[in-house]
């Protein structure tokens, strides 16, 4: 007899009772910290005070209050946000064109340091869940932190539409460093793909969330389209499948955001929903107003961080 399906709310309540769910006592990452991390220089004039919510849960709040889409004329009143001014990054050249690269280090974002330290420690411990999972993918190679690359893609639509952002997280000697390759217009896509492929070719293990069926073949297709030679063939750990195996029965679904809430016990407030990202990007290219791109970069950055954080929380494999 199959177990009766519980509604999502019941499940959430039960999870909370069992200790899952947002951690009330966890030390929050302050907003200032986040803002430092992405270095938004400009504070919009019409910034509203944060709404009365449970302040301690917030991992970050968007600088610009998000509202449902409205006609562009009314949506933004302040002066346009210039990407190059509000986000510290640099234009980099490649044989396939140029692109915009944003680098985030541990001293920019406090959360990076503890995650990195723990990750390194667990990877060196043969009994840890993290090690076991990496090991199943990479046997017989022994993986060190500097062999690993985390990756997350943001695309401009469905199907074979262009991508505009690839975020990677790699080991920078002692700590993780996040690099985001951003295309400021459609023509820069080739460079973005090329930057990623260059970065990836030096690494042994690629870690993604749903990358086996989406991100990786998608980048391969885009590389074909933009005529960037695609030669990489790393080991590939798709965390979605691992997470499903571990947490499927306990969680309503295994989306990254759900895992972040219930497993990492963090929450994003006012994050840009994934479904709005393509429109936001087209809007940016059309108007050069990067007010939403700041959020997209944050979204991507947090996705990468959460992936590492989740790996730290993999339970040890049961002994068969």
């Amino acid at each position, binding site marked *: 007899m199959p177990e*009766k399906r519980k509604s999502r709310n019941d499940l959430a309540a039960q999870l909370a009772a069992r200790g899952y769910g947002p951690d009330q006592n966890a030390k929050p990452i302050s907003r200032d910290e986040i803002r430092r991390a992405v270095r938004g220089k400009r504070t919009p004039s019409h910034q509203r005070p944060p709404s009365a919510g449970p302040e301690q849960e917030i991992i970050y709040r968007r600088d610009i209050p998000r509202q449902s889409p409205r006609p*562009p*004329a009314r949506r933004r009143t302040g002066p346009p946000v210039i990407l190059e001014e509000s986000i510290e990054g640099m234009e980099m050249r490649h044989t396939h064109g140029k692109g915009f690269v944003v680098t985030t280090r541990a001293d920019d974002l406090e959360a990076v340091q503890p995650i990195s330290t723990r990750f390194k420690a667990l990877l060196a411990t043969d009994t840890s869940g993290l090690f076991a999972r990496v090991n199943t993918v990479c046997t017989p190679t022994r993986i060190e932190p500097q062999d690993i690359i985390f990756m997350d893609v943001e695309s401009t639509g469905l199907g*074979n539409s262009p991508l505009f952002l690839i975020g990677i997280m790699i080991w920078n000697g002692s700590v993780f460093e996040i690099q985001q390759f951003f295309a400021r217009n459609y023509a820069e896509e080739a460079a973005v793909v090329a930057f990623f492929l260059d970065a990836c070719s030096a690494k042994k293990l690629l870690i993604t969330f749903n990358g086996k069926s989406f991100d990786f073949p998608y980048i391969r*297709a885009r590389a074909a389209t933009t005529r960037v030679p695609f030669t990489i063939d790393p080991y590939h750990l798709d965390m979605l499948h691992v997470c499903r195996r571990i947490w499927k029965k306990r969680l309503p679904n295994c989306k990254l955001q759900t895992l972040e809430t219930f497993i990492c016990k963090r929450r994003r407030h006012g994050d840009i929903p994934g479904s709005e990202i393509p429109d936001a990007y087209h809007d940016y290219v059309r108007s050069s107003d990067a007010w939403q791109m700041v959020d997209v970069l944050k979204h991507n950055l947090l996705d990468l961080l959460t992936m590492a954080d989740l790996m730290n929380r993999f339970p040890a494999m049961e002994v068969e």
Partner: protein
Amino acid sequence: MDVKLFLDGLTKDPDYKDQIAHIHTQPPREAVFAELPDGLHPSCDAFLKGLNLARLYQHQAEAVEALLKGENVILSSGTASGKSLCYQLPILQTMLDDPEATALMVFPAKALARDQAVAWNNGVLSIPGIVEPRSLLAIPYDGDSSAADRRTARDSSRLLVTNPEMIHSNMIPGHGRWLRFLRGLKFIVIDEVHTYTGFFGANMANVLRRLGRLCEHYGGNPQYVCCSATMGNPDQVAELLTGKPFRLIDSNTSASGSRTFVFWNPPRIKTRKWRGRRSANVEAHELMTKLVMQRTPTICFSKARNTAEMIYRYVRDSLKASGSGLADQVIPYRGGYSAEERREMEDGLRQGKLLGVSATRALELGIDIGMLDACIIVGYPGLLSAFMQQAGRAGRGQSDSLCILVGIDTPINQYIMQHPQYVFDRPIERVVIDRDNPFVVLGHMRCASAELPVTQKDVTLFGYAAPLILEVLEENKKITHHQDAWYHAAKEAPAPEVRLRGYGDESTVITDVNTGRIIDRMDKFRAMRLFYDGAIYFHRGDTYAMVDHDTERNLVTVKKVDVSYYTDPVTGTAVDHIDHILEQRPLGTGQAHLGEVYAVLNTPIYEKVRFYSLDRISQHPTGLPSIAYEAMAFWLTAPPELPEQVRRVDLNPESGMRGILYCVSRILPLFLTCDMNDFDWSLGCRNAEWHTMFWFEFYLHGIGNSEQCFDRMETILATALEHLLTCDCDDGCPNCTSRIITPYHVRNIELGEGGGPYSRRAAVVVLNAILRGDSAAESVKLLTSSRQKRGQSFLPSIVDKPRLTEPNRMPLDRRTRELLLRKLERSRHPMQSVDHVIDLKPQVGPRAESEDTLGQADAARRSQHSAIRHAADPLSRKLRRKLASPAEKKKAPPPPVPPTATPIQGGDSVARRARLRKKGDRGQP
């Protein structure tokens, strides 16, 4: 078969006296064989043997040689002359030589594609000692393919068999994953080229442009092979479709016996007022029964699915009654049957197990059914090429064949019965494809920009209007310009919005209540005319009553019943109202307009008709909602006093105007690149006078034809007038004012169009008054004057004149630009129901979308993707469900369903239902 004996039998039979109107005989032809070209791989010989062939005909050898040399080839060598072999051999040779080589075969219909894949695979599997037969197998890629099949096709296929829609909406939008296939692409085979005419042809040409562009991007350089039935200008059509030079091979060196055409006119019966002759369907079934009783394999073509089923039913019943035991050897064949059913039937035909098939045009294309000895065609199919194609189905090897055309009791068929030269002395229709039509290119350039950035080089590829189109798309915020290229700049994928065949790609599923099986699928347009309360539906000759028609979810359920009648709907399309007038100007004494209209397809009533006797039992309302479609139209308003003047000289103005409508639509192909079926026409509408003559396009929001007609109305109408004036008939004939029935225009199975020919005299009076301002009396005088005074000294036969050799160019001016913008805007509008509030005096002048809505996504602007909406349904689906069951929602969920029961639930989609049912079928013992 012995044709002479059979015909003698018929002429001597007193029952069949005077039925044969004409006999035409084509002489037999000897086969010319040729050796296999040198250098062919030994496996090719084995492949030939696998197909039971030893030698090649000369035209085949010629084609194979040309293809191996790297030429593009168009084959137009008649029915059953072995065209597929001409491309199969070179493809096999190339695939064996080069392990990376791939090939693509495109067929306009799914069934054809699957058929060809099976034939190819049989040949390949019979090659002895082949190393890796799996890599050589043809893989079908169509809407029926599962996700796993599609992945296989994408990742490992070398010979892909598909249709234009799959290329357009699945393959090239995701081209990055087809890198391997596109890079190795060596051959593109386009079969049944004659189907790519008009709108479909223009779309196909642009799909091929996009495909070619991608091949070039990935380094593939394919050769093209086109195959076509007999048509006027096959090489030109192939060149227009693909943009490449072609070598034409149109000699037919295969053997054939003599072919006898018999024109058979059903006897007159004067007992009833509404019908002058016996039913052609009943007549055809008698002929077919006779032939089958003589063990002659026979095919019978009729125009509609219903008639094919009905003739089958008649034949089956009379064979049963005769006790010959042949009833099982006759089948119906039409579109809509399931793939397995069709496959079984085709196999039966090919292997010679069956003696008779009653088919629709579905069998006109090259589905391999072997050859038959006799062919019966019920009603002239409207096009000479179609007639010849159907007749070509009969004739096996060297034996003589018979083709009988049974005349329906309509003006055109009766005219053909009396004037056989109309069929035999006329050149076959020419086809012109307007691939640069700005309205067609608009959609495809949008798709192209989403596939790869559009560069300056592509601008030349897409024809003369490309710069303007890029401008329009950029203004509409669909694309942006960066660094010498245009990029797609919107979230939504444009390909699903560009439809290749006009209306009607939603499909309705018909399920049998008793067995729970899906027994038929048809497009919604057709289903909306066929399924109403009380409708009788045919399936394999059995009658089914309709139980329920869910017009929202496109589901029909039927139940088998045994009744002695069938139902015959009366349907028609007409302009419902004018939505918006874009331009108007005076024309002679009348006024010409160009604008946007709402056309509707109505099925107001149906009749119950008894089998055999064809007695009209009763008439009933159908209660079907009308289907609305937004169309572009041009129209002509006659001066208000004109009808009265025409009546005074004892002529019917309405008949005259309908005659003009018909005549003009027939001569339009002389002035612009369109098909006769691209325009429909009607008289009057809700917010215009009854004496307004509308010609409207059959395609969503138009493809620019109406604008061109509007610009040339003076010339078009003058030519029509001259034609009407000089026709030699008394008062209307198919050459001037009567209408040929085409599949689009079947209104009623037995009556066809109904009504007599429209009055040529009245048409002349009306048109003369509008164009020259002549009074009715003057026009009548002109009509009775001698030929020379009337104008031309010979009868201009419009259909014989070559059509335009070059497609028309639309001017790239402000107006075209506005119209393109308007088309984009209109496609973003939510489709309104036809019952929306209308202006009695429609606005005049162009409209433009406001700047602040342009940034909005298309999906947000449109309430529903479907272009076909039923009119009388103001409630949304969600709202309707909410209103219908407010209590149900609060109820506890039903207990878990045991897994053995069919797990179909209320909200399941059609596809899911079908899948679940299939699973359920398999699960049950």
